[in-house]
Each structure stands twice: as structure tokens, then as C-alpha cells.
């Protein structure tokens, strides 16, 4: 190794430390003092926060999960396992929603995985939305629909159609509540989603209209 490469390596190390260390410190200093009786478990949870911060994961989601366990008087070991499991899902969601998912998108992705949405669907939903636009809301709605009993493939299909047709986040977010009211009236969740998605689609411009309105020379 020549001197120049050694300097470059040293500079990279310093830069990495300077970037990572403050977030780790913030995670450790900002982490709440959790009411977990077992000291070792409490420290293990705190370490999980620090590890997540160093990997660029949203620590606030982990803190909330730990606090939820404390509020629900769960055993310390169960809280640690829940935090650790969420950290793994966050990391998986970050990779699936790459290249640069926001905290909200990672949390939405992790929650989707938790209710059984297949990992490949996170990639599909990312691909269906314009780069740079947040997929947090569509993922949240997908999670809600799957939790209500709509098969994940059907929910994804309806959502991606709505997204491609230009449905607004508000229109997409309202789907879950609409489906619930139909389920209460006796429809199956799947049928309710289809009816409601059609209702939203009837308000959107047709694909032909979108093509016609698209600026000439650009791909619609």
C-alpha cells in the first residue's frame, strides 16, 4: 500500500466515523430510559437502537416498539425480540425499496412485511410509482387491506392500477375505510376492494386521456 492510498483509506475511515458516530450517539443519548426491569435486557435493547442507527434505520420506530412492549407489560426478553425482529424487517424493507427510501417508507415497508405482504411486492410497488415519489401511503394502504383479509396479490393489483391512473394519496388512503364500511354491510373484503377501487377509478382520467394530455415528444 503506498502512502497516497493509506491517506485515502484514513480519510474514508475518518469521514465514515464522523458520519456514523453522531447518529449512534444521538440514538444512545436520545433513547428513552425504558422501564425494563432486567438490566441486561434493557442494555440489549439500547444496543439494538445504536446498531439500527449505525445502519441508517429509523430508530424512532424501534423506540416506539419498545415503549409499546413496556406499556403492554411484556417481558423484557419479549421486548428485545420484538425490537430485534422489527430492526430486521426495517433493514429488509430498506433493501427492497432501494435506492434511497425515506424513514416513513422503511417503516411502512416493515409493517407490510409483518402482515404477510411478500417481499417481491414491495419492489413491485416501488417500481409502479414514479422515482422520488413516496410509496409510504400506498404501502400503508396495502398493509391495511391485507390485514383486513384482502389477498395481497389482489390488493397490490388494484393499488398499482390506481397509482398508474394517477390516483391521489388521499384517494388511495380512503380505500381502507371504504372497504371496512362495505365489509360491515356484508361484502367480503376482496369484493369490497374491487367495488371501491372501481369507484375511485371512475373519477380518474382514462389511460387514453392521459396519453392525449401528455406533452408531445415525451413518453406518457
Amino acid at each position, binding site marked *: 500500500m503506498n502512502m497516497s492510498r493509506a491517506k485515502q483509506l484514513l480519510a474514508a475511515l475518518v469521514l465514515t466515523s464522523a458520519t456514523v458516530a453522531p447518529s449512534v450517539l444521538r440514538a444512545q443519548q436520545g433513547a428513552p430510559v425504558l422501564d425494563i426491569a432486567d438490566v441486561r435486557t434493557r442494555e440489549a435493547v439500547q444496543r439494538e437502537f445504536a446498531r439500527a442507527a449505525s445502519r441508517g434505520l429509523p430508530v424512532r420506530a424501534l*423506540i*416506539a*416498539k419498545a*415503549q*409499546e*412492549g*413496556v*406499556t*403492554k407489560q*411484556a417481558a423484557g426478553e*419479549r*421486548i428485545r*425480540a*420484538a425490537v430485534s*425482529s*422489527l430492526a430486521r424487517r426495517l433493514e429488509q424493507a430498506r433493501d427492497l425499496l432501494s435506492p434511497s427510501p425515506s424513514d*416513513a417508507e422503511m417503516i*411502512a415497508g416493515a*409493517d407490510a412485511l*409483518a*402482515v404477510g405482504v411478500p417481499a417481491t411486492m414491495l419492489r413491485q410497488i416501488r417500481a409502479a410509482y414514479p422515482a422520488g415519489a413516496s410509496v*409510504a*401511503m400506498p404501502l*400503508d*394502504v396495502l*398493509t*391495511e*387491506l391485507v*390485514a*383486513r*383479509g384482502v389477498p395481497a396479490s389482489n390488493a397490490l393489483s388494484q393499488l398499482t392500477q390506481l397509482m398508474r391512473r394517477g390516483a391521489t*394519496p*388521499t384517494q388511495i*388512503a*380512503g380505500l*381502507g*375505510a371504504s372497504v*371496512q364500511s362495505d*365489509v*360491515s354491510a356484508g361484502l*367480503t*373484503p376482496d369484493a369490497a376492494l374491487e367495488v371501491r377501487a372501481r369507484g375511485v377509478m371512475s373519477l380518474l382520467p382514462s389511460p387514453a386521456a392521459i396519453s392525449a394530455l401528455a406533452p408531445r415528444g415525451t413518453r406518457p
Partner: protein
Amino acid sequence: MTARRRFAAFGAAVALATLVASAARAQQATDVRVEMGYANITQSGFSQADAALISLLWRPAWERWGFVTSANFTYAQDSLAAAQGVAAVDIPWKLSDRLRTEAGIAGASFSLRSTGRGGNVSTFVRQHGLASNYGAWVGGASGATDRDGVSSRSYAVDIGLWQRWGPLYLSAIGTRHRSTDWPLLVASGVMRDPDENVFDLRDGQLTAQLRYGPHDIAFTYTSRTGVAETEAAFEAVYWSGTLQIADRVALVGSYGRQLADPLRGLPQAEVLTASVRVSLGPKPLPVLERSLIARASVEPLALGGGMLEVRVFAADALEIVIAGDFSEWKPIRMEREGTMWVSRTRLAPGKYRVAVQVNGGEWRAPRNLARVRDDFGGEAGLVVIP
């Protein structure tokens, strides 16, 4: 009962169980319970009889009205058999949350050693007045029984009071019966003046029930006396207990004396039962807990986000708290408004998990929200704010 009829009754029970289980899959929040077990029944003047019990309960998650229907089958080899079905609805008044009307209908088919073969239909209606931890009702009921070709009618009016202190529930009920069902009442040891055609009875009943954690113990004492030309003097004590051993499973047992019920055509008997209760709903619902009638709604705000309102109908609750992502899972006490408990929270657009806890019990999701597991053996509700 012939072998063919037994086979038909068993087939009907299986078909009903399948139907109920299918309904449970279609309706996410539907509460379905199956109970199976053993009973030992001794009717006055007869030897003990062993019997098999099957009971089904179906309670759909309607948001405002309460509805429950159940079917019970009792079968013993030596002609002690009965099938009962009950459907009841509980309707809150729009004028006031403190008023509720309960009405129901029950049907039964039986083949009993003591009183013969036949059927019964009964109806009841009760008007409830509810306060925070106590309440009262007044009601009336009628029943028509046909037994070996002999028809009879029975009527009753009842008045009841109840009070709850934490996990302890107490009630006192006074009932006045009038019945022409002489085969049932004579077989149960009730006498009358030979010139009279009508039996008059007066019952006083006290019930104490303790619910604590997975345990539920109930004790009932009933005193019955004859009125006018009817001679009757009975006392009966009945114990029942439930132990929840898993999310979906509970053990149930009972022992004691049940007095004749002319409204429903049920004979007087010493009863011992032991059974297993299983919840078949798509999500494990606590077997013991009375269904939590919590409802969440979102009112969109002009500047974005929405107002999440959660209302819990739990007139007898001492304290209800709500927690969720929006409170960083710190519990917030809900406010009492009449017989309802209410929480209103202004939220930014996004997804939130929410749970409600009544009297320090389990954390439950509001009934109309999508429900998810919470990593701690419980559940939470999901709400998306546009």
C-alpha cells in the same frame, strides 16, 4: 329416539358448525365459539344419565347493534336429547346511550324421559337502563310448548338490578311465572289445587360473578315459591367456572341444581358439566372477555390530516385508556361521556396503530379497524389517515 333420528341430529349439528365456521372466515371480526363436553343429568325420579354436549355461538361484529345467536345440542343414549337455538339482539336508543332494548327468540326440540317429546318457542323483551357501574331492567317473556300433543303456554315478568365493583358483578332478579305446562311442573315436584289449571310461581335469584385474569367464577342462588293455589318451595344453587388456557381455548365446568323453566320447557335437574370452549374466529378473540364495543372513525381536517375519534361502549368500566403510535404508546385516559368513553386525537396523514385497554385488562383493537398482531401476544388496530 331412533338411530336414524340420532344420525340426522348429528348431521344437522355438523352442518350448522360448518356454516358458522364459513361465516367466520367471511367476516373478519365475527366471534364464533364452539363448546363440546360431557354432562351428567339427574332428573327427579330418574337415574343419572350421561350426555354429550355441543354448543355453537355466532356473534357478528355489527357496530351499533349487538346480535348473538347460539345452538345447543344435548344427547344421551336413553332418550334424553334436546336441541335449542337462541337469537337475541341488543338495540341502543338514539335518544340516550343509557337506554337499550334487548329482544330475543328461542326454539327447542326435545325428547325427555320425564316429560316426553315435543318442542318449544319462547320470546322475550327487556328494557335496560344503564349507569356507569350499575343498571336495571324490566322485561317480559312468553313461551309455548307442545309435548306429546299437549299444548301449554307460559308467561313471565321479571325485574333485575345489577352492580359492578371492579371484577365483581352482582345481580338480583325477581320473576313472576304463570304457566299451564302441568307435565313439566308436576314432573318437577310443583303441585297445585286439583281444581286449578294454572301454576303461579315466584322466583328470587341472586348472582355473583368474579372475573379476574383468565378466571371466571359465577354463583347463582334461586328461591322458588308457589303463589295462590300452587304449592312449591325450592331452593337451588348453581356454580359455574371458566379457565382460559390459551388465546382460543377455555375450560368450562358447572355443577348444581337447575329449577324447571316453563318458558323454555326445561325440566328441573341436577346438572354436572365439563366442556372445552374453542374460539374459531379468524383472529384469536379472548374467550372470556365480553366483546369490546369500540369504534374508531376519522374526520378529515381542512388543513390535512384527520381527527381520530375512538368511542367505547362500556358503561360499567372504571377506566379506559388508549395508546398508539400517535402517543408513542404512552397510555392516555379516555373521557367518559354518558355510557361511552371517548378519545379524540388530531393526526397528520399516515398509518397509526391503536389499542384500547379496559380496567387494566387486555389491549384490544377497536372493532371496526383492521387488526394486526402486536409482537407481544396481543393485537392492535390499524388506521390510515388520508
